[in-house]
């Protein structure tokens, strides 16, 4: 394949990138190219050796590498082109794409459409501004996961984990199984940040101490981490004087949130949604720049890999259509706005001409509420949590009633008296 002939270029080959590329190919795009910076397809799935992948998508309980493998086979069978160890270093607003690898040096492409599928990265210590010294032994949970599961190293033998995100909890279990003493999982919120199944299977089942409403307020040790000081926090997440305690440890893992990785999106100049963290997209997952699509954790951080792949398939399908037709018709006109206790909604705009699934992220845990979207949807919940995304399906016929009448839909989560 000549690079000048690429119809759809997909950046990244994790659960989003591969799904998007496969879908694009299946929808008739001739030349589909995946650009992947690592040595193999699969993105972060390779280091996720635990199970729980594909329960929805395949109806089977798979490990990360198994989940990846299903897609890798399909990529191969369909004849999708792949460039490994290739880093995309620039995208311009007119879809010019520059990549680099060791074999060819710099590569220039101008695909008919691009799917952004770069995934997300972890929040670091510096961003949390955790006070203290700067020794070795501080890792994000995902880096530790790679070290243990791919590289074959254990960062240390006495570990404190700050944050109860899913990767943190999974690493608590993984390290315990390696003979490491996980001294505590410390969470600033009054509830666990990740999925309930991980809370049960990774923490409770392994008797790992959980300290809710606590945080790390100081890191000790000049050369290597020697200890951390933790403290209870008040309602405003401020440490309470007199509740400090020292925990001796040689390693601190951070599992304090994921951030969609949008360096390239920013470079291309697509509009970003500060609430979701990724590009503003319509229900086709097209960004503000025609021909540039996005899917998976680059758009917003999902709870489940299955949703990542499904969302990216939407992007792949429409990217293929655009590459073939050259035009997708009018953009979505209806803007979705987060109202009370809603952090973010994806997609941010819809046309009202297609069925659509909305991904709604709650701001704070709340009991007895109803979720309302304009006048066309409401549902009661006993409890809503930020750790569990709410998926709402809106049918085209419901949306039809809005056409021409409204340009804005507000999603709100409001108190609601549930019958006992």
């Amino acid at each position, binding site marked *: 394949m000549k690079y000048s002939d690429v119809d759809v270029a997909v950046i990244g080959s994790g659960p989003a990138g591969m799904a998007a590329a496969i879908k694009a190919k299946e929808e008739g795009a001739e030349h589909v190219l995946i650009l992947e910076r690592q040595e193999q397809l699969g993105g972060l799935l390779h280091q996720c050796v635990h199970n729980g992948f594909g329960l929805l998508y395949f109806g089977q309980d798979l490990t990360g590498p198994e989940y990846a493998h299903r897609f890798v086979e399909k990529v191969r069978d369909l004849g999708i082109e792949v460039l490994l*160890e290739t880093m995309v270093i620039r995208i311009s607003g007119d879809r010019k794409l520059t990549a*680099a690898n060791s074999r060819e040096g*710099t590569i220039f492409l101008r695909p008919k459409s691009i799917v952004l599928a770069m995934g997300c990265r972890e929040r*670091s210590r510096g961003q949390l501004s955790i006070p203290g010294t700067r020794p070795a032994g501080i890792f994000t949970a995902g880096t530790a996961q790679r070290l243990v599961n791919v590289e074959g*190293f254990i960062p240390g033998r006495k570990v404190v984990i700050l944050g109860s995100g899913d990767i943190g909890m999974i690493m608590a279990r993984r390290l315990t199984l390696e*003979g490491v003493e996980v001294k505590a999982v410390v969470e600033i919120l009054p509830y666990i940040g990740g999925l309930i199944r991980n809370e049960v299977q990774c923490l409770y089942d392994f008797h790992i101490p959980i300290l809710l409403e606590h945080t790390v307020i100081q890191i000790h040790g000049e050369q290597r981490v020697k200890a951390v000081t933790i403290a209870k926090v008040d309602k405003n997440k401020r440490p309470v004087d007199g509740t400090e305690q020292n925990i001796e440890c040689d390693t601190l893992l951070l599992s304090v949130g994921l951030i969609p990785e949008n360096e390239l999106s920013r470079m291309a100049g697509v509009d970003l949604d500060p609430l979701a963290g990724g590009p503003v997209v319509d229900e086709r997952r097209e960004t503000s720049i025609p021909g540039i699509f996005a899917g998976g954790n680059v758009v917003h951080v999902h709870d489940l890999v299955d949703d990542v792949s499904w969302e990216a398939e939407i992007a792949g399908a429409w990217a293929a259509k655009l590459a073939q037709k050259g035009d997708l018709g009018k953009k979505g006109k209806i803007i979705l706005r987060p109202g009370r206790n809603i952090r973010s909604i994806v997609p941010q705009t819809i046309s009202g001409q297609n069925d659509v699934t909305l991904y709604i992220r709650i701001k704070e845990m709340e009991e007895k509420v109803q979720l309302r979207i304009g006048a066309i949807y409401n549902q009661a919940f006993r409890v809503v949590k930020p750790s569990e995304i709410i998926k709402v399906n809106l049918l085209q016929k419901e949306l039809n009633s809005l056409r021409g009448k409204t340009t804005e839909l507000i999603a709100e989560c409001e108190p609601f008296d549930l019958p006992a």
Partner: protein
Amino acid sequence: MGQMETEVLIIGGGVLGAVVARELSRYKVDVILVEKEADFGWGSTKTNMCIVCQGADTLEFRPEYHRSKLVWDSMPLTEPLCQEIDVPFKRVGELALIRNNEELSKFQKLKSRAEKIGIGSHKFLDQETLRQMEPHVTRQAIGALYDPNIAIVDPVRLTIALVENAGQNGVKVMRETEVLGISQKVNEFEVETNRGPIKCRFIVNAAGTSVDRIARLVNSDDFVLYPIRGYVGIFDKNLGGLIEHEIHMRPDAPGQMNIITPSVHGNLFFGTTMQPARRGDYSTTRRIAQIGLQNVRKIIPDLSEKDIINSFAGFLMFRNWEVGWHECVVQASLKVPRFISICIGYPGVSAAPATAREVTELLRREGLRLETNPGFSPFRKAPPVFNKLSEEEQMELVTKDPGYGHVVCRCETVTEGEIVEALRHGATTLDGIKFRTRAGMGRCQGGFCTPRVVKILARELGIPEEKITKKGRESRILLYKTKELLGAEL
């Protein structure tokens, strides 16, 4: 190890030790430079705010102070130096904000004084001009004193480049070499280090935060220094275009400073609070971080905590407690011959070039013979920086060395080729790679590249990955292999 011998021993591989080493390499003099850390510039140099040819701040320096002269004399020397040794130098200019008439009259006095001294290129800007130059600056500023001369550098890169150039010209450089004791003979010193004794005739003590301790080893305690700790924060590159100038605001409380500046690499640095602290305690505190953010928001109200990617503390050694009004130490010992101590305190990088000349002169007066080194070359070439090259140059580089096509640090686009090159230039640690190439300095702070850089380090140094350290000594990164702990317990 056999007895090492040299004419001049420089203790300390920060910017001052390095600049002196490079200056001495112009002459036929045997020089050894010892640094106790695994790489150069890891003390006060590393925590410098990157600003050189200091502006409004240094205007306030007392003209009769030695430090003032060194800073002012260095102003015309820094840019040519950076060009010779191929390190970034960018004249960004400074805006010293004026919020009221009191500040205006203060700056008017400073400006006319600067003109008298002959360092004045300052001019006053009204609010509108200021707003045009820096649209995000606080509305409280009614104008600014503009100094187009102020520039920014990368102090660690500058230091490394100086050491490399000195090395090319014959200076012997030893890292992870700590001075443990000094015994004095009539005509020479015998310096005890963890790598064996070094005999020398002259000592240049540029030991940064340890400069007074080293002086005491030879009973030359004729100055007293107080450690003052400063706090620096770094904003994400996203905000790189937010301001173009270094912006300074007079602090509202004593012991604080209030500066924000672009860095040569595209981040924003802000500096705040300078307080006495226990020496060697580089820890940061929540309170200081909060004050820092509050202060910098007084200059640019839009800045948000969530864009801070890192923060750190650094030490300045001052001759008195009063921040801003200290004097430096650049002197031959009053008691011990052939022993010279240097410590600028602040602003060390700005004062470096003139300090090197002065130390050379002091050494001459102490009896060092200075004959021109005919082999001296002032030029040193920086290793290639992939993401600064044109597409054609990138292509050419990858063809020559495929490692340059393999991007290891995604945030800063650092390639394997650059990392291997930094290793060849002497980096042996994760932090060494970081300061030399910027791998791990981006917004993910090494989350992605750490395992990869560790792997490259192990491969190139030919040692197991568990032996790789963050910054030398006891700072190993990976303590065990998988299954190792299970074996131990069963």
